[in-house]
């Protein structure tokens, strides 16, 4: 009965029938009380958004999975202390974090929410190393500003890891190899691969791996992540610690290692090689597979394998590198072929695999290790190699042959799936690499670089909501609102129900003063999801554009209520408070935003502006500087930093920053204007006039430019020019205050300055 009930509950969960699941599960727990069953009940409640129920059920349970679920429910209920204690009991510091990568990720989130940045970073990194496909962890690292380059994170090691996960047996290794080959494509990966390959080589062959070793050595180790030690040609199947199934196979592999190794080697340089390897492996049968798997698993192996073909390893790697350009797999093939020559006979398989599409190769590899074709033809090589290798593989080892016999087909099958996984993993990782790099760069506000990276994505990936909204955000940070508008528009077309990044879109429209579009966007978002903070942010921006700051504030406060961890909502609240001249609350809002996300430079900027208005110039300068450190490319922040310095009478520094700002963004007139202001204070009237003339060209209808020029001319006693410019300034329809000031200035034209009422 227990089994039936469990099955029923899980079925209901799968089909989202939560009421049924909960009811049945309760019966289950009552009938057979056990921790597993209560875990299941907790899962039902969590799925049904009743975290509090799960909390009560799981309280006090100690099984790893229970602790994880308990932590999840605490996190949802905002009881971060308990969540942390559950995942990482204080008195058992050596306890294993439950659920591996997921547990580390959750723990990282908790640390982030409680401001323990270092621990958070540590745990996110752990999570990523355990599960390289945990993109969310990488995202968090980027947001914290501590992410490594995407290439290393989503590199060979990752590929090996994935392979291991997806291929229960040695296949994993193969896939890894394949993936490694793919990896090889990327130079960074190459390094890894190289490392791996030597290692793999060693492991695989053990003694017979001379070739491998040779390759190993010969193979240029771009990154030589220290896999070098493999040179010993150790028969270290143990090297392939990863694939345990391999261990089992290793016995067999012992038999066939040599051939495998060779193959591996051949494939070495190219990730393709791994592909090729896989095929040979298949032929080699389980034993071979074992070693190969290890090889493959290492992912790096692929690269290594490329290297294995050491002879041409360098060439191969280069080939790989060039070949990679498009298809990871393919490159391998080419390289493989190169190496193959050396080991031609043996490494047939290896080389082939590397080249060309791993997938096709893998398929073929199984068939034959025709390493012979070491031509650069990526795809072909692989196939040939595989064919050759298979043959060669079989030849070298009689024992392997025997093994082969047992499992050629199975091996082949295994190889195939292995290579498929490898290929799949490498493709996926390649994709993640680009996305990861792009996201990391845009979090570091290197927007142009991020845009360049995103452009490398294949068309169909690029046209997805997430990517397009990232592109839009990048343009937004570069103050290119028109392009941002365009990108966000496409994003909305691609995924009209996605709310990610729509708050930024609403700000873009706010800046462009497109009130129609903005109100339409806000209405759409609200109708899509009334409970998302982004919708209310958009609504608030709409009201703010119409200068109805009180309603805007209400909307932003609603957004804050919906999700207090949404930093931008707090910042927008702050902006509205400041517009309403409620500086105290404004400061509080900005500080809440910073509590959520210290790298939210808008909040730093907001605080700087408040202090500037309150004439607390020291504070203002400090805050602008913090904002500047986070986003050193924003010309607006630089110009405000300059203004603050100017107010502190540090004119030289102010001018320096203004120059930087002008250089950073030619289209921004503000730093030029501020520069003129500073020059006026420094009594460098000619300089100021020069700058203002330049500005006149850029923005001919800007009244403040003429007004300032008028003022300067007045100081220089050039009354006619002053009169002219004041007149022009008035023509540009400035605000009432300015009209008054300018008219007053005109009246007092011939009166000395001391009496004048300057701001």
């Amino acid at each position, binding site marked *: 009965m227990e089994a039936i009930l469990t099955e029923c509950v899980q079925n209901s969960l799968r089909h989202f029938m939560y009421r049924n699941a909960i009811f049945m599960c309760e019966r289950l727990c009552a009938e057979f009380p056990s921790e597993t069953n209560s875990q299941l009940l907790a899962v039902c409640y969590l799925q049904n958004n009743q975290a509090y129920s799960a909390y009560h059920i799981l309280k006090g349970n100690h099984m790893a999975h229970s602790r994880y679920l308990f932590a999840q429910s605490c996190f949802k209920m905002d009881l971060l202390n308990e969540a942390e204690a559950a995942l990482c009991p204080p008195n058992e510091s050596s306890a294993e974090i439950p659920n591996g990568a997921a547990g580390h990720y959750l723990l990282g989130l908790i640390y982030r929410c409680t401001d323990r940045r270092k621990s958070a970073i540590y745990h996110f990194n752990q999570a990523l190393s355990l599960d390289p496909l945990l993109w969310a962890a990488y995202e968090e690292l980027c947001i914290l500003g501590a992410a490594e380059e995407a290439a290393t994170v989503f590199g060979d090691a990752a590929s090996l890891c994935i392979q291991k996960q997806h291929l229960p047996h040695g296949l994993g290794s193969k896939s890894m190899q394949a993936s490694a080959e793919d990896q090889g494509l990327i130079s960074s990966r190459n390094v890894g691969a190289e490392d791996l390959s030597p290692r793999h080589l060693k492991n695989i062959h053990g003694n017979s791996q001379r070739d491998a070793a040779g390759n190993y050595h010969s193979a240029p180790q771009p990154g030589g992540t220290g896999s070098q030690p493999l040179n010993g040609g150790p028969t270290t199947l143990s090297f392939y610690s990863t694939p345990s199934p391999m261990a089992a196979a290793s016995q067999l592999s012992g038999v066939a290692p040599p051939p495998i190794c060779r193959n591996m080697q051949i494939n070495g340089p190219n990730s393709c090689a791994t592909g090729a390897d896989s095929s040979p492996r298949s032929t080699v049968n389980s034993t071979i597979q074992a070693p190969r798997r290890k090889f493959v698993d290492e992912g790096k192996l692929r690269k290594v394998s490329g290297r294995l073909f050491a002879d041409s390893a360098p060439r191969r790697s280069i080939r790989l590198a060039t070949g990679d350009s498009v298809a990871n797999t393919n490159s391998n093939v080419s390289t493989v072929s190169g190496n193959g020559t050396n080991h031609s006979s043996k490494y047939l398989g290896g080389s082939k695999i590397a080249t060309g599409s791993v997938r096709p190769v893998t398929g073929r590899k199984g068939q034959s290790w025709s390493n012979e074709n070491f031509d650069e033809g990526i795809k072909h090589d692989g196939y040939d190699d595989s064919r050759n290798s298979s043959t060669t593989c079989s030849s070298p080892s009689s024992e392997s042959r025997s093994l082969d016999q047992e499992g050629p087909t199975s091996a082949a099958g295994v190889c195939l799936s292995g290579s498929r996984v490898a290929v799949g993993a490498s493709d996926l990782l390649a994709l993640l690499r680009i996305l990861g790099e792009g996201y990391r760069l845009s979090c570091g506000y290197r927007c142009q670089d991020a845009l360049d990276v995103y452009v490398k994505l294949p068309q169909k990936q690029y046209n997805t909501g997430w990517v397009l909204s990232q592109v839009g955000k990048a343009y937004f940070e570069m103050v290119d609102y028109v392009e941002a508008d365009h990108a966000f528009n496409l994003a909305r077309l691609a995924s009209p129900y996605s709310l990610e990044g729509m708050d930024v879109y609403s700000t873009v429209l706010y800046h462009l003063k497109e009130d129609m579009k903005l109100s339409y966007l806000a209405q759409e978002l609200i109708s899509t999801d009334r409970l998302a903070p982004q919708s209310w942010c958009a609504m608030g921006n709409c009201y703010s554009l119409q200068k109805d700051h009180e309603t805007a504030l209400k909307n932003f406060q609603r957004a804050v209520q919906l999700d207090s961890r949404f930093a931008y909502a707090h910042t927008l609240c702050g902006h509205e408070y400041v517009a309403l001249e409620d500086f105290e609350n404004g400061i509080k809002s900005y500080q809440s935003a910073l509590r959520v996300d210290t790298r939210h430079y808008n909040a730093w900027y907001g605080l700087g502006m408040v202090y500037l208005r309150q004439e607390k110039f020291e504070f203002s300068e400090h805050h602008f500087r913090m904002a500047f450190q986070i986003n050193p490319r924003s010309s*607006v922040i630089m110009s405000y930093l300059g203004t603050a310095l100017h107010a502190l009478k540090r004119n030289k520094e102010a001018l320096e920053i203004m120059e930087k700002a002008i250089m950073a963004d030619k289209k921004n007139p503000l730093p030029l204007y501020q520069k003129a202001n500073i020059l006026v204070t420094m009594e460098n009237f000619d300089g100021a006039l020069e700058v203002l003339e330049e500005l006149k060209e850029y923005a001919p209808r800007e009244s403040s430019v003429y007004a*300032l020029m008028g003022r300067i001319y007045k100081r220089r006693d050039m009354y006619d020019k002053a009169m002219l410019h004041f007149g022009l300034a008035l023509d540009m329809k*400035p605000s009432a205050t300015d009209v008054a000031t300018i008219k007053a200035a005109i009246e007092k034209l011939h009166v000395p300055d001391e009496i004048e009422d300057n701001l």
Partner: protein
Amino acid sequence: MAESSEGEEEGKLVGGDQQLVVDDDLCEMAKKAAWSVSSCKPGNGVLSLRDDNLDTYWQSDGAQPHLVNIQFQKKVKLQLVVLYVDFKLDESYTPSKISIRAGDGFHNLKEIKAIELVKPAGWVYISLSGNDPRETFVNTFMLQIAILSNHLNGRDTHVRQIKVYGPRPNPIPHQAFQFTSREFITYSTVR
């Protein structure tokens, strides 16, 4: 600044708007000010002047002139005073002669504007600007609206709402002039 719809004759204001329409570059300045009145009937106190409800009114209860005092926390620039009064509803309670005074405190108030209302029915705009462009704004700590007499010689007065407007501060602090062109405004803030 919109004047009453019926035009103006030398200090006389006729008619009144039903809708309050104010320029975009003006904003209400007296939200944080201290409001007080010379006298009031219980239930019709000073709060009714600021509650945005045109049905509630302030009713004075003493000798003329009836005073509404507005004290600001710091010197502010003011440009416009708007009153809602309705002859049809209030008849003899409707204010007729109004004097607006400004100064630093009760001790040195000086009259800056004198106006006479003739059967007003709605929002009445009283501009505080002088003729000189330098006098567009009144820069003051305190404003006093004195109701000197009512229609039909009534003793007490009803005023339904009072609003005080001044120029919007420059959104960019520490800046002499406000930006007008799109290029400047786009780059002028980070949101």
